């Protein structure tokens, strides 16, 4: 073992690192780093050629600085030079730098690839490994293009050293993951599979990862691996703990390889060959047996390694789901772990049992552990373990234990962690519906749910209880009575008022016979809650009142009086006012017959998939129900909804889900048609849309159903979110090109303006016009053909990569596939901001021009500041809020050089273009600019304050952003620093 004396490395580097460590403040650190950067820069630029050692040292310093979190924008060339050094350590540092700081600079990639190529053909195993490690670490498409052909050859060649084979296998795996189309195994397949038989355990360990990944994608081509894997596993499992020498880990033979073999087998069904299957079952039994043996060591590493294999074996047993004996044994084993003193094991046992619960062979065995699991839910100190317990209870629930489990979950909800309440509520609601034998229990459960965790009861849950009550006439009287009682509570949750208002409005007559719940008493009870409720709930209550007038003529005068009062008929909320006016008129003009027809009892809802299930399905994760299970639950629990009804398929959920997301349609429409649209805030409208959707009211004006149905010509709802993907005919199938290198720059051009030319080359010009209101936006793209030849199969796709998908909802209308020479076509894109975001959507354009495919991608200039609403405020308020946002992460600051002339008017225009309010006379220094605004996303509003301090002398700016959300401050700061 070489002694690692601190001096044998690079002394200068060590000194620099200690300097950094001795810095007392961030500022001092930055100062020290800048000094070092300047020094290195001058060395690199100096006339004197640097020797390899110095180059290595400086490159290593740069790497250290980068890893500290600072940007590095030079030194790449020097690092590339190191690659071709024949001194190992220099080469090694060069490769490390490249692996960590890849730059997509194509010039460099070519040089890097050249150096790698040289090392790969050097036949020096150490150099070959370095080169392979670099490819595996970078794994870019360019590298795949250059090396995907070469590496399989290295991997299977007879004279390749073992260590090189290992690197080659994993290197190939990485390339396959990034560019599967470039890695063609074809002729190599069989030789790669046979690496499972290799003498060297390390080679098998590395190769099996590759084989598993390839098997998942091409199971048929690789299926010969099954028998090889079984025999390898069998040899390991039956070996004595010392046989495998250094591959034995704390007395467990080859735990990593064993786990990977078991994982590989999970890519396939049980082996068909009886002998192979017999051998495998034997292995699995041995693994289960070993779990019962006394441990060979007290070390946690021993038990972890042993149990890792055990859990993987159980996964395989569950995957096969065909050996009742093994399934039950697995369940018993996990049962022991449920009470183990290691938290890790309890957690994993709960998780694994969750999947066992769905097997018909082990479901009953899992159920026997119900008390232990309930106990875990109550006593575990770690919330993630409690979450697993709740998941397992949900998974093991069936008709026999539903009442107990639902009761336990309800009582747990009272103290449950906030992070898991919403999911718990959904689960309780689903179980109550799925296993309800009598509906009164179901109604009680949901009302309890609202009482205990009202804030976490989503709309889907209370919509569902109403649908069910309406569809089941035997529960309506009970429901009316129960909500009436629930509403007696002095403080009840608003969701309770909603359910109560709706149910009493429909079925209040069923309990009106009792003088304690006479019509007037019911009305007064509801109305006593009215003033405490939000607008949507009040709107719902108003509808309940008009129904009361129909149900109970004796309440007419009282209710008319309420409707007539100024607080209703002159309510500042348009929706409430409109309802009050319309209902008042309806009740005084319409005859009782007309009234009775208009306000007839709701017809049963058509069978539809529970919107709650749909919601839970979205909340992925172990314990969330699988699709199969849902289908089953439907069959079992179907009678609750009248049984046997045809389910309307996916369409049936659209109404509900649209209603719960304030759809972009209403507002965007308004945007286009100008101020005439009277629509209430989307939330108010949507509530009604759902409740009344089945009765034929399909727009936000309530009485629209009295008019003949009209084609809603430009309703955006008509085209569902998926449409934009599928709309263009599959003219061009090539992958989208990566975004143009200049696309960030193009994006920056549009931060402070909404219209202009986004892109132009010799063929095509793209112009943009866009408008934003609140969290919605609409963008018009104009594609101009600058040539005299037509473009054919013109298609565009807009995509939101990664996280952005959940932050922006972008819908692009299809565009004309043909653009004549010199012509222009237009495309409309609707944008809804769901949450704050940093990335930009990608626009990919493909078309053929004179037979050649053109494929280019740009970033659509949608940036977070587009959703600003300006906020005016006085100096005092501004600084008070400024102070409130004083946590360090709420602030982002940049000091930067002016890249344009520092003209006050231009700066002002840009700040206004940003979308914030420019506040005058706020900052004591008149040279400074301050702004305030609120970013509107669907999920939340983010208040932001800005301060820009120009320093004309130094030609510098200091920009400071403070927001209630750190990501927003940061993003705004990045965007703006590019503007001045």
């Amino acid at each position, binding site marked *: 073992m*070489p002694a690692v004396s*601190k001096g044998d490395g690079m002394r200068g580097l060590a000194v620099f690192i200690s300097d950094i460590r001795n810095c007392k403040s961030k500022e001092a650190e930055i100062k020290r780093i800048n000094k070092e950067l300047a020094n290195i820069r001058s060395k690199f630029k100096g006339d004197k050629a640097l020797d390899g050692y110095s180059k290595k040292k400086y490159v290593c310093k740069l790497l250290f600085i980068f890893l500290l979190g600072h940007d590095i924008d030079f030194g790449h060339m020097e690092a590339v030079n190191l690659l071709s050094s024949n001194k190992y350590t220099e080469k090694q540092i060069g490769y490390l730098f490249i692996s960590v700081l890849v730059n997509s600079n194509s010039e460099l990639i070519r040089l890097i690839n050249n150096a790698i190529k040289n090392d790969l053909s050097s036949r020096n195993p*150490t150099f070959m490994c370095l080169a392979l490690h670099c490819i595996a670490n970078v794994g870019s498409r360019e590298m795949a293009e250059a090396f995907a052909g070469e590496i399989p050859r290295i991997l299977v060649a007879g004279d390749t050293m073992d260590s090189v084979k290992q690197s080659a296998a994993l290197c190939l795996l990485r390339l396959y993951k990034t560019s599967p189309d470039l890695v063609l195994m074809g002729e190599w397949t069989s030789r790669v599979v046979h690496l499972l038989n290799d003498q060297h355990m390390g080679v098998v360990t590395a190769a099996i990862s590759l084989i598993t990944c390839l098997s998942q994608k091409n199971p048929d081509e690789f299926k010969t691996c099954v028998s090889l894997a079984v025999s390898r596993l069998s040899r390991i499992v039956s070996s004595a703990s010392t046989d495998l020498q250094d591959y034995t880990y704390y007395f467990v033979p080859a735990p990593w390889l064993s*786990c990977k073999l078991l994982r590989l087998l999970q890519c396939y069904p049980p082996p068909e060959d009886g002998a192979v299957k017999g051998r495998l079952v034997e292995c699995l039994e041995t693994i289960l047996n070993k779990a019962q043996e006394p441990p060979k060591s007290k070390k946690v590493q021993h038990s972890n390694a042993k149990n890792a294999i055990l859990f993987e074996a159980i996964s395989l047993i569950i995957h096969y789901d065909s050996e009742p004996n093994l399934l039950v044994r697995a369940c018993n084993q996990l049962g022991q772990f449920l009470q183990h003193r290691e938290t890790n094991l309890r957690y994993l046992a709960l998780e694994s049992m969750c999947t066992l619960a769905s097997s018909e062979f082990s479901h009953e065995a899992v159920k026997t552990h119900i008390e232990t699991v309930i106990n875990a839910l109550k006593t575990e100190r770690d919330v993630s373990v409690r979450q697993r317990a709740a998941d397992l209870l949900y998974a093991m629930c069936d008709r026999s234990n539903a009442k107990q489990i639902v009761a336990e979950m309800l009582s747990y909800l009272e103290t449950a962690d906030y992070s898991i309440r919403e999911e718990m509520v959904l689960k309780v609601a689903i179980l109550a519906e799925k296993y309800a034998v009598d509906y009164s229990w179901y109604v009680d459960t949901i009302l309890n749910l609202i009482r205990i965790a009202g804030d976490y009861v989503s709309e889907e849950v209370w919509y569902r209880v109403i649908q069910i009550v309406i569809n089941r006439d035997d529960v309506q009287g009970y429901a009316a009575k129960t909500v009436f009682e629930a509403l007696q509570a002095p403080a009840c949750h608003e969701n309770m008022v909603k359910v109560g208002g709706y149910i009493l409005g429909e079925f209040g007559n069923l309990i009106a016979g009792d003088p304690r719940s006479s019509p007037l008493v019911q009305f007064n009870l509801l109305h006593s809650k009215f003033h405490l409720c939000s607008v949507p709930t009040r709107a719902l209550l108003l509808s309940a009142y008009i129904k009361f007038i129909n149900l109970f003529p004796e309440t007419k005068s009282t209710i008319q009086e309420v409707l007539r009062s100024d607080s209703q008929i002159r309510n500042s909320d348009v929706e409430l006012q409109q309802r009050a006016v319309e209902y008042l008129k309806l009740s005084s003009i319409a005859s009782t017959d007309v009234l009775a027809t208009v306000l007839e009892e709701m017809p049963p809802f058509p069978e539809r998939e529970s919107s709650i299930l749909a919601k839970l399905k979205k909340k992925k994760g172990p314990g969330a129900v699988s699709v199969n299970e849902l289908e089953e639950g439907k069959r079992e629990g179907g009678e609750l909804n009248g049984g046997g009804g045809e389910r309307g398929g996916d369409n049936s959920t659209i109404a509900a889900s649209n209603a719960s997301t304030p759809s972009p349609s209403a507002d965007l429409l308004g945007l286009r048609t100008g101020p005439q649209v009277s629509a209430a805030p989307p939330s108010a409208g949507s509530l009604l849309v759902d409740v009344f959707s089945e009765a034929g009211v399909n727009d936000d004006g309530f009485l629209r159903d009295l008019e003949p149905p009209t084609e809603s010509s430009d309703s955006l709802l008509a085209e569902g979110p998926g449409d934009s993907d599928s709309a263009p005919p599959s003219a061009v199938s090539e992958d989208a090109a990566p975004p143009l290198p200049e696309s960030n720059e193009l994006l920056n051009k549009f931060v402070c303006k909404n219209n202009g030319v986004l892109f132009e080359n010799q063929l095509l010009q793209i112009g943009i016009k866009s408008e934003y209101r609140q969290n919605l936006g609409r963008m018009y793209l104009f594609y101009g053909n600058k040539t005299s030849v037509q473009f054919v199969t013109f298609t565009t796709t807009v995509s939101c990569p990664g996280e952005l998908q959940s932050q922006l909802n972008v819908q692009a209308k299809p565009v004309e596939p043909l653009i004549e020479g010199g012509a222009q076509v237009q495309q409309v894109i609707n944008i809804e901001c769901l949450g704050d975001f940093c990335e930009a959507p990608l626009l990919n354009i493909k078309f053929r021009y004179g037979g050649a495919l053109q494929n280019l991608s740009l970033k659509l200039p949608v940036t977070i500041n587009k959703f600003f609403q300006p906020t005016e405020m006085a100096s005092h308020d501004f600084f008070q809020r400024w102070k409130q946002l004083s946590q360090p992460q709420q602030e982002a600051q940049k000091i930067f050089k002016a890249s344009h002339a520092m003209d006050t008017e231009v700066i002002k225009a840009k700040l206004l273009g940003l979308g914030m309010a420019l506040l005058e006379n706020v900052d004591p220094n008149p040279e400074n600019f301050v702004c305030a605004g609120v970013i509107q996303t669907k999920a939340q509003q983010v208040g932001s304050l800005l301060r820009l301090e120009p320093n004309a002398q130094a030609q510098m700016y200091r920009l400071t952003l403070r927001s209630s959300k750190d990501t927003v401050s940061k993003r705004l700061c990045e965007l703006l620093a590019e503007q001045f």
Partner: protein
Amino acid sequence: MQFMLLFSRQGKLRLQKWYVPLSDTQKKKISREVIQMVLARKPKMCSFLEWRDLKIVYKRYASLYFCCAVEDQENELITLEIIHRYVELLDKYFGSVCELDIIFNFEKAYYILDEFILGGEAQETSKKNVLKAIEQADMLQEEAETPRSVLEEIGLT
């Protein structure tokens, strides 16, 4: 495995290894989030966390946290032992390793990791073989050593 992070109790990142392509901004954001989450955990809690669609497996050794993010279907316990084996490798190489060794010899920590795990998968699980590979490299290094200037000896360049 998608990435591995080593960080101190104060939340200072000491080593980061990414096995999936991500931008620098994303990497910084993820590290911040994961570090915060893991540091908030109490001692007796379990070593596994669900995070986005991944699982975080972590363990603390003295002042350092070792933390891996693996895909949902990965085996948590074996990942825990991946961490332990890496700690053993560092320990053996540096001779009872401490945080400072990793700070001052970060490049070595990266080399050892590359020999052990490549592209997010175990390449060589035998301690002996990994150390042998590193030793060989160090031999090459020693042969290549050249005399240095006085200034360099005292670390002034």
